[in-house]
């Protein structure tokens, strides 16, 4: 039997809802990973050891173990501790923290690379170190790592397929559902791939826009 894409339109609504879930989980996780990344970076660099050590431990845990395992741990493992998170929330936390750790590494390097004169100028005006970090150093560090953070966010979009295993009916799981009914894996996986690619293009367009907007502030 050859390929038959005529089965696809009948399941387009299922697939499109999957696309929406994929976008939702990607955007929520991206936001968490962005702000979490800044928070982890500042903690890792400046917090007293009582905060720094746990953050280091979590960073080590999230970088050193498979994302799939982290998702299982958050979704199934935490239930044993009485924390029963909805699959979507567990997925966002898992993806968000995982990528926050990677973003944090980028942001730490960028913070240390901001010209020392910037901190000095802010301190000279009377700002505290915290104020200078918040208003002067961190914004510049974040601006400097927008391109590599963007790459992380595209990796995040692709890894969002993993949350299908804890039952979030995003694009991959929706496709599997359609395949289960029609026994047409190639067609639906191809369609899913196409939609991932389209969302990817959309993200890249947004990133380019942000980069253009920040070009003047260099």
């Amino acid at each position, binding site marked *: 039997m050859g390929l038959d894409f005529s089965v696809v339109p009948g399941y387009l609504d299922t697939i499109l809802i999957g696309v929406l879930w994929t976008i939702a989980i990607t955007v929520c996780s991206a936001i968490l990973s962005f702000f979490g990344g800044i928070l982890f970076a500042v903690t890792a660099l400046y917090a007293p050891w009582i905060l720094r050590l746990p953050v280091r431990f979590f960073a080590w845990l999230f970088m050193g173990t498979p994302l799939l395992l982290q998702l299982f741990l958050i979704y199934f493992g935490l239930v044993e501790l009485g924390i029963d998170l909805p699959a979507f929330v567990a997925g966002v936390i898992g993806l968000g923290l995982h990528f926050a750790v990677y973003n944090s590494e980028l942001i730490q390097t960028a913070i240390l690379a901001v*010209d020392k*004169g*910037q901190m*000095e*100028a*802010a*301190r*000279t*005006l*009377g*700002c*505290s*170190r915290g*104020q200078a970090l918040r*208003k*002067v150093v961190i*914004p*510049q560090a974040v*601006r400097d790592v927008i391109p590599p953070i963007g790459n992380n966010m595209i990796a995040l979009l692709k890894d969002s397929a993993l949350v299908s295993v804890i039952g979030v009916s995003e694009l991959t799981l929706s496709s599997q559902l359609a395949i289960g009914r029609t026994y047409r894996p190639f067609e639906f996986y191809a369609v899913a791939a196409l939609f991932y690619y389209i969302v990817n293009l959309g993200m890249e367009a947004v990133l380019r826009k942000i980069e253009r907007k*920040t070009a*003047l*502030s*260099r």
Partner: protein
Amino acid sequence: MTEANKFVDIRHAQKSYGELEVLKDISLSVDRGEIVAIIGPSGSGKSTLLRAINDLDPLTGGEVWLDGVQINKDLPYRQYEKHINAMRQQVGMVFQHFNLFPHLSVRDNVTMAPKMLKGISDAEANALAEEQLKHVGMLERIDYFPSQLSGGQKQRVAIARALAMKPKLMLFDEATSALDPELVEEVNLVMKRLAEEHMTMIIVTHEMDFAASVCDRVIFMDKGVVVEEGPPSVVFQNPTEERTREFLRKHLSQYAEGAK
């Protein structure tokens, strides 16, 4: 004159980096409204002394007083931070490399600190930015970013940023040495204007002409000590110390060659 009358008072300033003693027991004072130039060869400790005044490079010995308050007080960390931030609000500083905040517009460069530290409203902040930028002739660039300005314009904005905190004292560390020659004058003019308004200023400079025409007093430093000080007419035309003469000979001949 009693101790209390000295506006800026540096007492036995001493600074070492490990074995290297960069400032050796320097004492000097500056009156309110006085304009002082610090000159001297590279590595003589001019920047270190200037940066010790607002404790950017803390002294290893001695005291710095401003208007009756000790700046480098020995306090527990938290109290010290509060104290030094309050003191630094009263001391403006201008750097050789401007150090404008590149991610902020000219307006926000000027208003960032006053808004955050003095809690002024947006309307007040805008009025302040306009007033200060007008003062340095940069009002029409208020919505530009630093990357869109020439070096001279950047330095004028940096001066406006410092003035927006309404400091009692301004410190300049070679404010014009990073500028192309044709941009030096616009910054010098702004500094001259401040001098006419009787701002107290301590100016580290390599420009002898500027020091001679603007400053009330010239301090010549070498190897961490004040070798000679006095009015420009005396220090430049009739220096008593051989080291001063030698420095001026080099510097003025360089200047003469450049002028040919």
